[in-house]
C-alpha cells in the first residue's frame, strides 16, 4: 500500500485515479461521473482509442445515483430492442471483473419477479416466452417453485396479495456499485482520461448548430464532442443547449436494514406491491420503493413512500418483522414516457444524450457505456441503441417497457 499524494495516513487505500485540474480543451467531454459516464469514458478509450477525454462531475465521483441504487442486474425485458441492449449489458457484466481486473462482487444469484394477480401471471408468462425467443434465460415458476428458490417468501394463499407465481432469471443478480464505479474510474484514468470532480457545468456553448464547449465552475472547456450522462439532471443540462427532453425527474427512495446473517438467497421484486429486496454481501437487506409522485431535485422523498414499501416487504417476508432500518435515502431519477432510455444523437451536432433510464440504470452500466462510446466515436448510433433515439417520440416508435420496468426497474 502506498501513501496518498497528500500524505494521508498509510491505512488509507491507494488512490485509484488522479485528481487532475481540467485542461482547456478535450476531444470529448462527458458530463457526469456516475456509472454510465465512467463506463462511457472507459469504452471510448479501450475500444475506440479516444483518450483525450474528460469526465466532469459537479460533486464527487459516483456520488449520485451510482451511490443510491439497489444494484439489481437483469435483462428480462419484453421487447426485442430492450432485450438487445439489456442482454448486451448482462453479457458485459459477466466478463467485467476480468476486463477491469477488479473484483466487483458480481453475484448471479437469480432474480424473481413475483405475480400477484391474474394479469401479472399472464404478463409474466408472456414475458418469459418473449425472453426465451430472444435467447435470454427465463423460467415461469409456480408458488412452490418460488419457495424452493427463496424459502423466506410467504407463498400462503391467505396474504393480502398472494404469490401466484414468478418469472425467474437465474443469470440476474447484484454487484457492488462502488466497486463498479471505482473499477471503471481506475481503468479509464490509467488510459489517460481526466476525471474532474467538483466541476459543475454552468453553460453549454453551441455555435451554428454544433456544440463548441462548456462553461464550468472551474473555467471554460472547449470540446469537440459533449456527452450528457447526468440522469435526473439531464433536463437542466439539455436546457443549456436549448433542448427540451421528454424526461421528468422524481425522487426514488431505498433503504437498508442493519447487518444480518445471510437469510435471503436471491433478488425478489414485486411490481404489484411495490418492493424489491436483496441482501448485500455485507449483510444488509437492501430494499427499494416506487418513485415519489412529484417532480423533485432534492434527493429526498416522503416518508409514507418508505412506509408503504416496508409494509409490502413485511407482507411478503414475515421474517423481516424484527429487522431495523439502518438508513433511508433518495436519488433523482429521470423517467421517460415509455420507461425506456434515450440514448443517441440530439438536434445539436456533436452533442449526445444518455438518459431516461429512470429507476433502472445501474444494470445497464457496462452495456450503455459501450454503445454510448460507439455512438460518440462514430457520430452515429450503435444498432443496439438505434431504437432508443430521441426521435422515437416523434415517429411514435416507442419501446413501452412499463410492464417489465414499472416500479422495480
Amino acid at each position, binding site marked *: 500500500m502506498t501513501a496518498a499524494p497528500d500524505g494521508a495516513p498509510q491505512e488509507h487505500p491507494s488512490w485509484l485515479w488522479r485528481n487532475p485540474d481540467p485542461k482547456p480543451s478535450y476531444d470529448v467531454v462527458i458530463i457526469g461521473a456516475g456509472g454510465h459516464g465512467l463506463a462511457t469514458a472507459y469504452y471510448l478509450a479501450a475500444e475506440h482509442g479516444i483518450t483525450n477525454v474528460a469526465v466532469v462531475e459537479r460533486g464527487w465521483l459516483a456520488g449520485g445515483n451510482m451511490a443510491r441504487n439497489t444494484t439489481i442486474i437483469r435483462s428480462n425485458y419484453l421487447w426485442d430492442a430492450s432485450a438487445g441492449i439489456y442482454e448486451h449489458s448482462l453479457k458485459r457484466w459477466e466478463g467485467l471483473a476480468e476486463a477491469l481486473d477488479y473484483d466487483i462482487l458480481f453475484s448471479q444469484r437469480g432474480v424473481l419477479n413475483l405475480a400477484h394477480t391474474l394479469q401479472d401471471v399472464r404478463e409474466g408468462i408472456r414475458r418469459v416466452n418473449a425472453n426465451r425467443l430472444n435467447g435470454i434465460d427465463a423460467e415461469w415458476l409456480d408458488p412452490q417453485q418460488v419457495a424452493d428458490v427463496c424459502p423466506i417468501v410467504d407463498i400462503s394463499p391467505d396474504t393480502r396479495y398472494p404469490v401466484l407465481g414468478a418469472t425467474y432469471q437465474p443469470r440476474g443478480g447484484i454487484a457492488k456499485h462502488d466497486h463498479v464505479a471505482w473499477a471503471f474510474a481506475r481503468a479509464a484514468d490509467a488510459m489517460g482520461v481526466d476525471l474532474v470532480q467538483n466541476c459543475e457545468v454552468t453553460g453549454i456553448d453551441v455555435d451554428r448548430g454544433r456544440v463548441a464547449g462548456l462553461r464550468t465552475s472551474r473555467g471554460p472547456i472547449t470540446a469537440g464532442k459533449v456527452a450528457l450522462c447526468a440522469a435526473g*439532471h439531464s*433536463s*437542466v443540462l439539455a436546457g443549456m443547449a436549448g433542448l*427540451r*427532453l*421528454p*424526461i*421528468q*425527474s422524481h425522487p426514488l427512495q431505498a433503504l437498508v436494514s442493519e447487518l444480518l446473517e445471510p437469510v435471503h438467497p436471491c433478488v425478489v421484486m414485486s411490481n404489484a406491491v411495490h418492493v424489491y429486496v436483496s441482501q448485500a454481501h455485507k449483510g444488509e437487506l437492501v430494499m427499494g420503493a416506487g418513485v415519489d*409522485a*412529484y*417532480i*423533485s*431535485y*432534492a434527493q429526498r422523498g*416522503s*416518508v*409514507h413512500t418508505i412506509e408503504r414499501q416496508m409494509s409490502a416487504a413485511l407482507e411478503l417476508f414475515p421474517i423481516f418483522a424484527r429487522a431495523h432500518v439502518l438508513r433511508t435515502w433518495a436519488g433523482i431519477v429521470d423517467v421517460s*414516457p415509455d420507461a425506456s432510455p434515450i440514448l443517441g444523437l440530439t438536434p445539436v451536432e456533436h452533442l449526445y444524450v444518455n438518459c431516461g433510464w429512470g429507476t433502472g440504470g445501474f444494470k445497464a452500466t457496462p452495456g450503455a457505456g459501450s454503445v454510448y462510446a460507439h455512438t460518440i466515436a462514430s457520430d452515429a448510433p450503435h444498432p443496439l441503441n438505434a431504437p432508443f433515439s430521441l426521435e422515437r*417520440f*416523434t*415517429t411514435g416508435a416507442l419501446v413501452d417497457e412499463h410492464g417489465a420496468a414499472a416500479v422495480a426497474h
Partner: protein
Amino acid sequence: MLSVPCPWCGPRDETEFSYGGQAHVAHPAEPDALSDHEWSDYLFVRDNPRGPFAERWCHSAGCRRWFNAVRDTVTHSFLAVYRIGDPVPEIS
C-alpha cells in the same frame, strides 16, 4: 411528507392528494394543424425545472377539487396556490 396547502381546506398531508404534473398545458386548439414534432412536444415533453414549477394537485381524499400550485422542486416549499384557470402568480 409534504404539507400541501389546499386553497379550500388548508394545509393537509400529502397522502390526501394526487399529483397532476405541469399546469397550464393547453390542448392544442387545432390538433390537425400541428406538425409531428409539435404533436410529440404536446404529448410527451413537459417542463422539468430545478426550482419553481407550476403544477396541478387534486385533493382527492378531501374536497376532491383540483388546483394549481407553484412549488420549488429543490426545497419542496409551496410558493403559491391558485385556482385552475387563473394565471401563474408573480413570485417575489
